């Protein structure tokens, strides 16, 4: 079973990018972002291209001020590039009107942040239902989808709890469920393991990894290499530019040969 799951993950591992798989779930093309004007100008991104396919987890690493957060905001349509294009499922979000853009963004991507994740006055279930209610689906359907999403991350039994009745790790699971509820297939995660201890952080990465192996696309911003190492590809950002990228070269079976 583990071998099968492994293969699913590896098939989706890109590099060559099989064209028949359709457009990437998320794509940035030569994106730049300049904040401010004149002497105060800050070039947050200086021409970044990046794509994330379904079944792929891409991590972005870089020192603070390297443009990581700007990149994530642009990828999710929370901010607009100064030049370049952002595409969701092959559709340039910059080309559609703001109303449609919001809908496109909402139906395609979900967010997981380090904190300020869940609405405190809503139960876990209601939190996960929220994006679907905003999509305009019926309450009954939103509820069914939310329960399914919670089950995917192994916290279905916590559906009736409020955020302050959940541990940090449980809250992050609920946040992942909310990010990927219904038809959403892309999750943008900003330091999702930030406030968690190392073992809980690892559990969150495992949940994210499983959702990706089951077909989601994920873009993860982190400054912790240990969590970035869960990705299929790690992109290094420095001064607004991609300076390097790495993916594991060989299958794990080639590593540490003597292991049974």
């Amino acid at each position, binding site marked *: *079973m*583990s071998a099968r*799951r*492994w293969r699913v993950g590896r098939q989706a591992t890109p590099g060559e990018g099989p064209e028949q798989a359709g457009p990437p779930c998320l794509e940035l093309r030569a994106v730049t972002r300049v904040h401010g*004007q*004149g*002497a*105060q100008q*800050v070039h947050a991104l200086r021409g970044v291209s990046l794509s994330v396919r379904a079944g792929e987890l891409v991590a972005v*690493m870089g*020192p603070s001020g390297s443009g990581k957060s700007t990149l994530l905001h642009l990828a999710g349509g929370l901010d607009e590039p100064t030049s370049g294009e952002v595409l969701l499922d092959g559709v340039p979000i910059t080309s559609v009107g703001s109303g449609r853009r919001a809908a496109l963004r909402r139906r395609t991507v979900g967010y997981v942040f380090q904190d300020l994740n869940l609405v405190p006055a809503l139960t876990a279930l209601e939190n996960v239902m929220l994006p679907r209610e905003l999509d305009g689906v019926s309450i009954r359907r939103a509820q069914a989808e939310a329960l399914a999403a919670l089950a995917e991350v192994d916290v279905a039994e916590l559906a009736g709890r409020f955020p302050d009745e959940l541990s940090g790790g449980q809250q992050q699971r609920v946040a992942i469920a909310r990010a990927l509820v219904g038809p959403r297939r892309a999750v943008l995660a900003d330091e999702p393991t930030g406030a968690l201890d190392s073992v809980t952080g690892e559990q969150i990465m*495992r949940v994210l*990894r499983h959702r990706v192996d089951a077909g989601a696309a994920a873009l993860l911003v982190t400054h*912790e*290499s*240990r969590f*970035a*190492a*869960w*990705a299929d590809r*790690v992109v*290094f950002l*420095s001064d607004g530019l991609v*300076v*390097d*990228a*790495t*993916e*594991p*070269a*060989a299958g*794990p079976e080639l*590593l*540490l*040969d*003597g*292991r*049974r």
Partner: protein
Amino acid sequence: MYGYQLRQEFEGRTGATWPLNIGQVYTTLGRLQRDGLVVELDRQQDGSVVYGLTEKGRDEAARWWTTPVERGAPARDELAIKLALAVTLPGVDVRAVVQRQRAETLRAMQEYTRLGMRTDEATLDGVTATDLAWRLVLDSLIFAAEAEIRWLDHVEQRLARARASASAPVDRPTDPPAGSPTEPQAGEGLRVPSRGRGRR
């Protein structure tokens, strides 16, 4: 326990990360026997020997558990040496050296992590003590790699700071623009030397 069994158990627990030479096992057993820490319990017809701990051996093992591992003199670290040399030589792009290493170390970490995921999934229905032992060894490889990357990040920042302070007297205008002695500073952290008039 037989000598070959000992090796098997060691490698099972450590994922063969540190392969053990069988000759080394027997030499060590011989020394332990000489020092009275193990004894021969039985000898098969083929000459293979079953060893066991003596009372003294048991005491020695107990002492080992509770004694911290000595750090000893720092091992020769090629990366530290490489960077120490790089910063002192003209013509070496230290940032490139750092980034190349960071990417490589992260790639190794990705492989360890995958191996860990696979181990965890293979042991979903129950972790044996040997699996757990192997997982701990794997974790130690991952955390050591993480420490190296953090150190590289730190090296990069230290270099940037050193460069900035070395070039500061050249970059920084000696006087504030004449007309605006009380001009507000350009925000926290990012202090852009203002040429001409500042904008608000």
